[in-house]
């Protein structure tokens, strides 16, 4: 009888062992699937830092600083530099000036708000604004401020473009209907 009991116990243990192992595997797959789904539906989270951002663990979201709105040159410079830094951090210098120039071109176009702050903070206009990257303090040695100044002084590598997008990550279908003027770094610039 003892032998029978032992065999049944062994069978049960083996069966439950298999079940827990299967459950564990299912659990891992489910978590991975959820994570993947979350990453895909949130463009910003397609990277590890983006994912961390999502969980609120990012080291990048620095202090939130308010900016004066209106036509003051010093504050325009700072705001523009932050926007360039948020949007075109790893881009070549010409690309950074180009992003600044696009923002300034928009202030002169009737389809967009008339102030730099208005253009930058227009809901949905820039991903760096929507996900808070604009608030990251400028890293030392960053050329964003210099690029902002050149853009404010009139240099426009885009020859008047109003739009730019990264062809690899752009999700909006509409943006592709814009006339492409040139490509600088990772971005297409268009009118």
């Amino acid at each position, binding site marked *: 009888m003892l032998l029978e009991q032992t065999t049944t116990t062994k069978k049960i243990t083996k069966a439950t062992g298999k079940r827990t192992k299967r459950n564990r595997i299912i659990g891992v797959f489910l978590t991975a699937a959820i994570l993947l789904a979350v990453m895909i539906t949130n463009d910003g989270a397609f990277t590890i830092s983006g994912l961390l951002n999502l969980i609120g663990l990012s080291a990048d979201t620095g202090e939130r600083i308010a900016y004066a709105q209106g036509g003051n040159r010093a504050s325009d410079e700072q705001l523009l530099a932050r926007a360039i830094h948020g949007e075109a951090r790893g881009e070549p210098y010409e690309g950074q000036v180009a992003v600044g120039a696009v923002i300034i071109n928009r202030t002169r176009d009737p389809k967009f708000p008339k102030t730099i702050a208005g253009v930058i903070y227009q*809901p949905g206009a820039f991903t760096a604004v929507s996900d808070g990257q604009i608030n990251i303090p400028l890293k030392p040695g960053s050329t964003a401020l210099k690029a902002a100044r050149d853009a404010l002084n009139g*240099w426009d590598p885009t020859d008047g473009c109003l739009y730019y997008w990264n062809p690899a990550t752009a999700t909006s279908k509409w943006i592709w209907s814009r006339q492409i003027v040139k490509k600088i770094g990772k971005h297409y610039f268009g009118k």
Partner: protein
Amino acid sequence: MNLRLMTRRDGLLGIREKLLDFKRRLSDRKMYSIVVVVIAASLIWGISQYKHAADLRQELDNQYNRAFYEMIGYVNNVEVLLLKSMITSTPERTASVLQEAWRNANLAQTNLGQLPVSQPVLANTSKFLTQVGDLAYALNNQNMGGKPLSSEQFETLERLHNLAISLGKSLNDLQNQLSSGRIKWGELADKGTPLFRKTSSKLQLEQFEKIDKTFQDTPKLIYDGPFSDHLVTIEPRGLTGNEINPEQARQKVVEFFGKDKVRSVTDEGKTDTEPIKTYNFKVLFNNVPDDQWASISVTQKGGHILWMLYNRPVDEEKLDVQKAKEAGRKFLESHGYSGMVDTYYLKEDNTATINYAYKQDNVVIYPDLIKVKVALDDGEVVGFESKGYLSAHTVRNIPAPKISEEEARAKINPRMQILSSGLAIIPTNYKTELFTYEFKGKLNNRDFLVYINAENGKEENILMIIDTPNGILTM
């Protein structure tokens, strides 16, 4: 054999024993309470986060609603004021009504830009409001000068008024839907539920798109406002010469920097958009690392350098601004731009950006603008911008001024102390040019530039010079 079975069974039993023991410990009251507390704490945290998010959402919704309702209010005002301006009898009265219309159109457009509707959907509405504003502004100036509306302008106002009526109507429809709760801003702005956004909010986007389509057929307004469509494709006057090919453009690039300096010139493609088509290049220099290069853009017509930007770090400031101005002037002379004088400069990041204007017969011509950026460590030119010059430069037929300098001086506010005077041609908001007297003066310890029209003595513009430690910048 029995022995072996027994030990194996013991081992298995050992693991199972341990598991059971753990389960037993878990059932123990203390463990139980700890687990319950942990679960309860997570629940509370979760609920408070959710509530916090809901509060923020509500605040955001409120902002959007505020912007929306304000916009509707201003649009309705614009409609009424446009109507009024067609009825008023005297130019002065028309002027003040149009001024109000301009202010309201501006405010409507500002609030429009705060709505969470994607930009392309609202582009035409924004354009309409801007154009209404500009027209009102331009006509206002005209009326203030005592000139009443012409019949053409009256018709334009009528057309705009009709468009304003239909915009107002569509917005009121939209407002009804919002108030009845059929649409929520949150759905539009919610990035966390993009699927939801795509389906249910499509309704609202469609509404806005419908409004926007009304304005796609806005007739090209024939006035000279700054945002007139027809001025976007203005023919660049300074773009002289014949079409060149990329090889010739490459030559121009080498000439621009100097053959000895240039290590390599890489083709970066061409830009074929109006009004100025260009070839683009990237230039590497001798004895300069690969990560410092210059971008340069050469016009397809005439091979002029449209702009150049050399991103090299400038770490110290050895030259004073006077020497920098000299370096800039020498550069312009040696590159075929003669007759340029410096007008304003800005010192930043150890470089000086100097604005040069063309001077003809003692008249400073501001529209013919070239900007030169000089590095203050060795006087090297690290930036060049000539779009203004290429757009506007031509040899002008400048008439003699119709009023004398004394007469012009008399028009200036007597409280201002005049320091110097001269003649100038200045650009207007409407892309035309005016021939003026330029007076630099002081009032309340602030510097001003006053421009008096040399043909009719009207005060055309007043610029306040802001002396910052970075240089002389005007606003």
